[in-house]
């Protein structure tokens, strides 16, 4: 599959099997593939992958620092900050780095050059080659509240010449959107429960807004009820794979093994899932290569 396709694996609800599916797809493919763990607040693809010679890359964001002696207390920095990260007080500006989105507006508008941007580390990216898988994972430093800059840095490693699988954070807010953005396809992993359905609907709305084609994978498909199926049918959303609820899958998972270890026959289904995705994307006629 020498197609430089980017497939995001997202869900809405947490714990539906995004990582399980992402890692299994990468292993099933058996040829060069890049796997990006963009769930940077809790990356866990690494549990299922043997890693050697781990490379580390530091990721920082720019945060304003004020040179008090040069500040004329005009307050323009606070006015331009749309993230409310700066307040202007009679004693000068007060910066809340945890609210800063590193837009640089304050440094540009400061008439006296009192504000400069300084690098603030937010996390690291670990890279390794494990068999056919080029693996990258972002790890946020504890206490850092804004993950999108790190997620973007991890996504810089998507492959220009082969398939890239992106394991996304749960939810449908900025981290998830940053992770799925510019992908060619989104696989939404869900489960047949009321929470699974509720969050699937949110993820479907998000995918539609982003104009990225998507389909559903139903995990633990024979548990719960059939409302997810009914919803997908009514909305004409393809269900590309059903992973049954099996004790051996749960046991394998708890030992750091994948679905393929538990149910080897699923490998063929995972490869056809990838082929289905490629056909859907090709039918839509646009690949965001590179």
């Amino acid at each position: 599959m020498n197609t430089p396709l980017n497939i995001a694996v997202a869900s809405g609800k947490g714990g539906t099997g995004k990582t399980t599916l992402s890692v299994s797809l990468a292993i099933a493919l058996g040829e060069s593939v890049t796997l990006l763990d963009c769930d940077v607040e809790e990356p866990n693809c690494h549990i299922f992958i043997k890693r050697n010679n781990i490379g580390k890359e530091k990721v920082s964001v720019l945060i304003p620092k004020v040179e008090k002696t040069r500040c004329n207390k005009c307050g323009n920095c606070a006015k331009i900050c749309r993230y409310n990260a700066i307040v202007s007080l009679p004693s000068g500006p007060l910066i809340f780095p945890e609210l800063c989105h590193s837009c640089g507006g304050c440094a540009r508008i400061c008439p006296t050059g009192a504000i400069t941007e300084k690098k603030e580390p937010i996390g690291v990216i670990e890279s390794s080659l494990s068999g056919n898988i080029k693996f990258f994972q972002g790890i946020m430093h504890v206490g850092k509240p804004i993950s999108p800059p790190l997620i973007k840095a991890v996504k810089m490693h998507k492959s220009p010449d082969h398939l890239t699988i992106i394991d996304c954070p749960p939810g449908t807010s900025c981290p998830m959107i940053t992770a799925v953005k510019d992908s060619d396809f989104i696989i939404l992993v869900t489960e047949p429960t009321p929470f699974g359905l509720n969050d699937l609907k949110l993820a479907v709305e998000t995918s539609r807004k982003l104009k990225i084609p998507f389909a559903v994978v139903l995990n633990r498909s024979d548990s719960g009820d059939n409302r997810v199926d009914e919803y997908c049918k009514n909305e004409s959303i393809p269900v590309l794979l059903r992973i049954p609820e099996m004790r051996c899958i749960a046991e394998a998972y708890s030992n750091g093994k994948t679905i393929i270890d538990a149910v080897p026959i699923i490998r063929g289904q995972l490869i056809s899932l990838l082929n289905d995705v490629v056909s859907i994307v090709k039918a839509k006629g646009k690949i965001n290569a590179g």
Partner: protein
Amino acid sequence: MKIAISSKGKELDSLLDSRFGRARYFIIYDGKADTFSVMDNSMNFDAAQGAGIQTAQNVLSTGVEHIITGHCGPKAYKVLSLSAAKLYLKENGTVKEAIDDLIGGKLKAANNADVEGHWM
């Protein structure tokens, strides 16, 4: 004496708003002239983030010496603590009752945030 009170409405008999950063209005009461004005806080009511610190800046810019609200988080408190204004916490009642309590010496100045951010 100028007092800011977080309020759910625009009158002296409006109920206190227990939230600081996302209070709907602030009543700015001028004790000397016995008049008041209304500060609309709707911009911060809907702010994605940083409502507390922005509200603190806006309230301080009116030149008040006393601020009465229900609860105050750490970031807003940090901003307020850099000014000379004193903060008082009062959960229930009307704006007028809060002013009377303050003038009557029934409120004690807070010397810390009393809740975490996003407490509600």
